[in-house]
């Protein structure tokens, strides 16, 4: 009996040790980042495509003004309410002291310079599929934006989701550099894939999530319940989205549907981002949306 207890105890310790080891924050290897530095001008475009400001701007930001990325907007989810942090260039309240490489580690691996896991409300699972130079460019652009001394507010997340260490296990399940759409792609669809899967992170809202909060890629872009609200985020696979590529591109430019209804909800801010893209990039998004499998 005593021996059995000892064995169980030892196994539990081994299990806990394994979980601890498997949940450790993993960064991109330093050698991969060595020598890279960002171009702020190129970063401005990718920053717009990614819509960083849509979540990180203060709730009272005046449209059209250079946003101070003071954070504070709340994002409800089944796991609790997340609050976008201050990512302005302020050295105390923001991330002004982070190096470009440290910002890239946060964007592409969800790890802070202190080695803490970030919650995947920050779409690093999308950015992980991207290229390093684009991430460095965005990091360089972030450093040019105004500072805000507004402190970040804590997330309201209950047990067990408040155990950040466990996010290491989540990342083992859902963080991958592999693209969702594979196979032979035209140059236009490949560019669309960069925009949809990575930068604009469309799948974060338009793809349903499993019980652990990872996107269900078997239903990629097939629509999902609106997080923290009534209603649904629409299915944008060819099974449901029957607009022409020109009509999709026009919607991303002006917000008008072919029937002259308009975008609503959070999509209004997404349109503010996609309206800043080149017409070619909007058409690339449309071409990609026509190339993904239709899911009823």
């Amino acid at each position, binding site marked *: 009996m005593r021996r059995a207890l000892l064995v169980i105890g030892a196994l539990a310790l081994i299990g806990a040790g394994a979980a601890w080891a498997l949940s450790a924050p993993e960064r991109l290897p330093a050698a991969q980042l060595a020598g890279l530095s960002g171009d702020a001008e190129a970063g401005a475009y990718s920053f717009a495509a990614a819509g960083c400001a849509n979540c990180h701007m203060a709730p009272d930001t005046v449209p059209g003004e250079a946003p101070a990325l003071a954070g504070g907007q709340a994002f409800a989810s089944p796991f609790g309410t997340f609050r976008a942090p201050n990512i302005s260039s302020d050295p105390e309240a923001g991330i002004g002291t982070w190096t470009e490489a440290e910002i890239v580690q946060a964007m592409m691996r969800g790890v802070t310079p202190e080695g803490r896991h970030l919650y995947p409300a920050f779409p690093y699972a999308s950015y992980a599929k991207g290229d390093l130079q684009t991430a460095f460019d965005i990091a360089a652009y972030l450093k040019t934006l105004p500072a805000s001394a507004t402190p970040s507010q804590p997330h309201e997340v209950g047990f067990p989701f408040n155990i950040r260490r466990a996010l290491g296990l989540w990342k083992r399940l859902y963080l991958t550099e592999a693209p969702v759409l594979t196979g032979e792609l035209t140059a236009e669809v490949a560019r669309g894939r960069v925009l949809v899967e990575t930068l604009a992170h469309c799948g974060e809202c338009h793809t349903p999530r499993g019980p652990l909060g990872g996107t269900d890629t078997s239903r990629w872009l097939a629509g999902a319940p*609106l997080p923290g*609200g*009534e*209603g*649904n*985020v*629409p299915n944008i696979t060819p099974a449901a989205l029957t607009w022409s590529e020109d009509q999709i591109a*026009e919607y991303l430019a*002006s*917000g*008008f549907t072919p*029937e*002259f*209804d*308009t*975008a*609503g*909800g*959070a*999509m*209004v*801010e997404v*349109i503010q981002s996609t309206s800043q893209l080149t017409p070619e990039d909007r058409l690339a998004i449309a071409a990609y949306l026509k190339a993904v499998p239709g899911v009823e």
Partner: protein
Amino acid sequence: MPAQSRLAAIALALTLPAAPLLAQGMDPAAAAINARQSHMVLQQTFLMPLGGMAQGQIEYDAETAAAAAANLAAVSSVDPRFYFPEGTSSADMEGTKALPAIWENPEGFAEAWAALATASTALAEVAGDGPEALQGAFGAVGAACGGCHRSFRQSE
């Protein structure tokens, strides 16, 4: 009425019950929802030729553009207080996407609603002056539509 006090009046009216319609023996909630949805369809009717010309899908015609823009300006300037009686939000009943935020933030709603009247009045002033003038003023109309749908209309 000055813009400020007009907005305040609209905001106040949103807190009033739909008594006048009850007196006529209609279902006031259904009538109000029908009215506000019809209002949106009317606006779409005038947006279609304007948007088609602005987006280059149909040929620009000055007279059509001016007439559609004048109609849009007239409809969007309608005082919305009769459309949104208490108890007709998407949380209260089926068949409407009007979010409770309309009643929770009446000043914000009145402002977002009024933004389309402002944008479409500006559009009506130039819509007959040529395709560039139409295009230039049309973007603000789309922004006004989205600005209200952002927080006050339920998604799908």
